């Protein structure tokens, strides 16, 4: 027997939590585009699986902009006030399995040499409910990096849309069980995700090629059309680089963390004017090295869930999958 919940009951369950002070984060349509955002009214939530969201759920764990501390200066005296602890509870509902999968990938990073309370507290206080995929597109490649349209990594519960206004609920953790306890009913219906995406490359040989071809001219060739913005990194569920800047005035302000991207020229520009990654090829190499060599070496995860958000959002039709495919070609021609 399976457990099912109707869409109405799901909304009611979330509304009850909301009434208890829990923040609900769900997809909302703004024009034709779907964004994950805080919802005040569950009726505004677009609770159905979809391939494309304009943002990742990452920003509810690692916000685009976050205060670390604030300062007030009076004469020679400086008062520092730490940012408050994150004490709210939140539920993210409707995440793609590949978006939720980024969370366990990021966990070791934010609990490595520095215990990042900003990420850790949000992670501890959040329940993630994902929706199994109903379709894939040409940008998807989750199965190449160990995921699946019904992948459960990072989720506390996964819901399968049954097409009759209800979902099959599979609880995966205590948090998931707590959310749905007493809210589901027994059924003999079971849900299924769509077929996995079609992929004609493997990560392993490409990662080996990346490791051994640091100085290859291929990097500049494949990156020639990249214009060096941060869209790929900012929509990516796993990219996590940030910049630290002070904002405000001389006498009063705050120190903040803002998302940053290795694809911009400014990222590695030294005060001397020298830039160790002075061309787009070097910057793209860094991105692919970090995702498929450096991060797996250190944390045993590829820093990529194959969600395809980067290439869907790229103004010049680039992104991880197109890059991997170009590198796969380079790797196979260097073998021959």
């Amino acid at each position, binding site marked *: 027997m399976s457990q099912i919940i109707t869409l109405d009951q799901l909304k009611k369950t979330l509304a009850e939590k909301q009434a208890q002070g829990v923040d609900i984060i769900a997809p909302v349509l*703004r024009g034709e585009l779907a964004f994950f955002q805080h919802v005040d009214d569950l009726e505004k939530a677009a609770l159905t699986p979809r*391939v494309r969201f304009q943002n990742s759920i990452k920003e509810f764990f690692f916000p685009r902009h976050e205060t670390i501390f604030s300062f007030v200066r009076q004469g020679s005296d400086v008062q520092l006030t730490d940012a408050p602890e994150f004490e709210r509870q939140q539920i993210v509902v409707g995440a793609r399995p590949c978006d939720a999968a980024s969370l366990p990938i990021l966990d070791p990073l934010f609990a490595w040499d520095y215990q990042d309370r900003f990420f850790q507290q949000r992670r501890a206080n959040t329940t993630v409910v994902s929706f199994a995929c109903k379709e894939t*597109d*040409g940008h998807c490649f989750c199965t190449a990096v160990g995921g699946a349209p019904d992948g459960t990594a990072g989720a506390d519960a996964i819901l399968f849309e049954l097409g009759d206004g209800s979902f099959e609920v599979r609880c995966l953790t205590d948090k998931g069980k707590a959310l749905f306890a007493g809210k589901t009913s027994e059924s003999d219906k079971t849900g299924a995700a769509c077929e996995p995406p079609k992929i004609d490359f493997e990560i392993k040989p490409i990662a080996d090629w990346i490791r051994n071809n640091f100085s290859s001219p291929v990097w500049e060739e494949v990156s020639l059309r990249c214009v060096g913005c941060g869209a790929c990194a900012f929509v990516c569920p796993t990219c996590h680089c940030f910049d630290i800047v002070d904002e405000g005035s001389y006498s009063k302000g705050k120190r903040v963390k*803002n998302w940053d991207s290795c694809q911009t020229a400014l990222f590695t520009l030294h005060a001397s004017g020298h830039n160790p990654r002075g061309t787009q090829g070097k910057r793209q190499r860094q991105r692919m090295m970090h995702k498929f060599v450096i991060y797996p070496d250190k944390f045993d995860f590829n820093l990529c869930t194959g969600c395809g958000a980067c290439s869907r959002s790229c103004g010049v039709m680039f992104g991880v999958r197109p890059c991997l495919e170009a590198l796969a070609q380079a790797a196979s021609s260097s073998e021959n």
Partner: protein
Amino acid sequence: MENQIKNAIRKLLEEKTVDVAIGYGRVGVDGAVGAIFVTKPEDVERLVWNSNCRQNLAVHLTRPEVKALGKPAIIVKPCDARAVVTLCNEAQIARENVYVVGVVCEGIVQADAAGNPTEKLYDKCLSCLAHAAQNVDLLVGDQAKAKELDETNAPNAKNVGNQAKLAKLREMSQPERFAYWKDQFSKCIRCHACRQNCPLCYCNRCVADKNRPTRIDSSSSPKGNFAWNILRAFHLAGRCVGCGACAAACPAGIELDLLNLTLANAAEEQFGYVSGRELGQAPLIGSYAMTDKEDFIR
């Protein structure tokens, strides 16, 4: 037309008139069309032309990695051709150092959420009055067709597409309009795809990247987002050619082209100035005339 482009580029490369051709080719997934850089005559078969060629390739003319390849030929749509002209007028490139192959463009189609082409034309195309690229070294395509499309669009150009959207915004009260832009800018993640995909955002160091001191908060906060998007629009006043590359590249779908159109309309209404229309035209903000409206000029 695709064959005409291929033949023209093959000849330019064979005769070594240019070192590289910046054109459209199949890149990315599902047959997506984007920039390719052809340096060998035998590779011209990779070039394509269709209604999905939405990128403005002029953005690549000022990229150092592309400049390093030598003298370029570039395939331009009519709006992209205006960007090349403005780049010349602003002394960013010398006209004789680029070979411009213009096309007759019947309109570019919008992409869906997955990036695949739809049947729907871009808003900017609905009000287009120049379907044949101007100020080019070579024009390919059916000029009679271009003229016909110009004439079809002419009566309604100010009432459709982006102009219609803008008119609707202008009808709003000031607080309503402010609320509209506040909502739009709240989606901004400060990835700067608008800037990086804009052929006219070529500053070596953008004011948004200055941090000694910081001029604009790099934060994706209401203050930072307003400052960035408004400042960028102002810096493009009298310069934007309306190619729509910024809005097309924005991952959050912000209607940046409407901001720019407001200022382009102002430039045309107040000064009769259209960016990129004529080679040799002095930049609007960088010049003055005794006939200018404000008295302080005289």
